[in-house]
């Protein structure tokens, strides 16, 4: 069994992740994410910055498929996640806020990215997906 802590390197933001969601009418959406945050052994967090299609879909249909890449050996891991809660203050929110500020500074886009919330998802499935 693979645990989230076993793939901690996937959460360092080196290699963008992928997230696929679907609207209530069954239309998929897929995009890259600059970073997924490890919360604990059962949860990950995503930053909600814009009311994007990904976030609109997750409000309608709370499950998503994430692919994370290990930046050292390029193994891929596929996670099925389900929305659990939103945090608008506190240590997790602050961690994501600082991360966004750092990315904005690096890309010269200060003021463009503003964290609305830290959205926490329960990981319901985690599998090795290298080559798949």
């Amino acid at each position: 069994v693979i645990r989230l802590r076993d793939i901690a390197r996937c959460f360092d933001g080196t290699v963008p992740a992928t997230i696929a969601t679907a609207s209530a009418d069954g239309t998929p959406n897929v995009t890259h994410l600059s970073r997924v945050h490890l919360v604990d052994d059962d949860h990950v967090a995503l930053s909600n910055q814009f009311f994007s299609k990904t976030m609109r879909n997750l409000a309608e249909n709370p499950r998503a498929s994430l692919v994370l890449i290990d930046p050292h050996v390029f193994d891929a891991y596929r996670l099925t996640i389900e929305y659990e809660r939103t945090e608008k203050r506190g240590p997790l929110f602050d961690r994501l806020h600082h991360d966004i500020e750092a990315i904005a500074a690096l890309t010269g886009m200060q003021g463009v990215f503003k964290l609305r919330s830290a959205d926490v998802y329960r990981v319901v499935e985690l599998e090795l997906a290298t080559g798949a």
Partner: protein
Amino acid sequence: VIGTEEASLLESGGSAVVGTVDADLLPDSTRAWGVQVNGDRLRLLLPAASTRSVANLRAGGPVALTVTEVLHLRSVQVKGRAVAVEEPTPDDLRRSERYRTEFFQAVHDADGSDVTLLQRMAPDALVAVECTIEAAFDQTPGPGAGRQL
């Protein structure tokens, strides 16, 4: 639905990711290892081992494809529906080989990643998926992401 610039980006060595969904609205994500645009049709080369996505597409399900330039992050998403899942042709396999070379080189140029290690990401076997193109979106990161083209 898409112009020549978008078609060129879709067929480039950018990072190509695919979203599908099953009848219970469970999404699945995988990578494309070669894309061909033929008018209002797409031909995607997907890992045969991506069993959920391949099953979703064999059922004629909807599909989303996003391709992002590795260095500049310019990005486009197209959406449509699968119409056929087939064995790849020799042309498909050559296209996939060309895509891998360009994609891995782009990643190497962007962050210095070792190309030999990057090759571990590549699938052993492919399937070819014919899809319609029904809508296209600017997916370049930022507040304008998701604007329909």
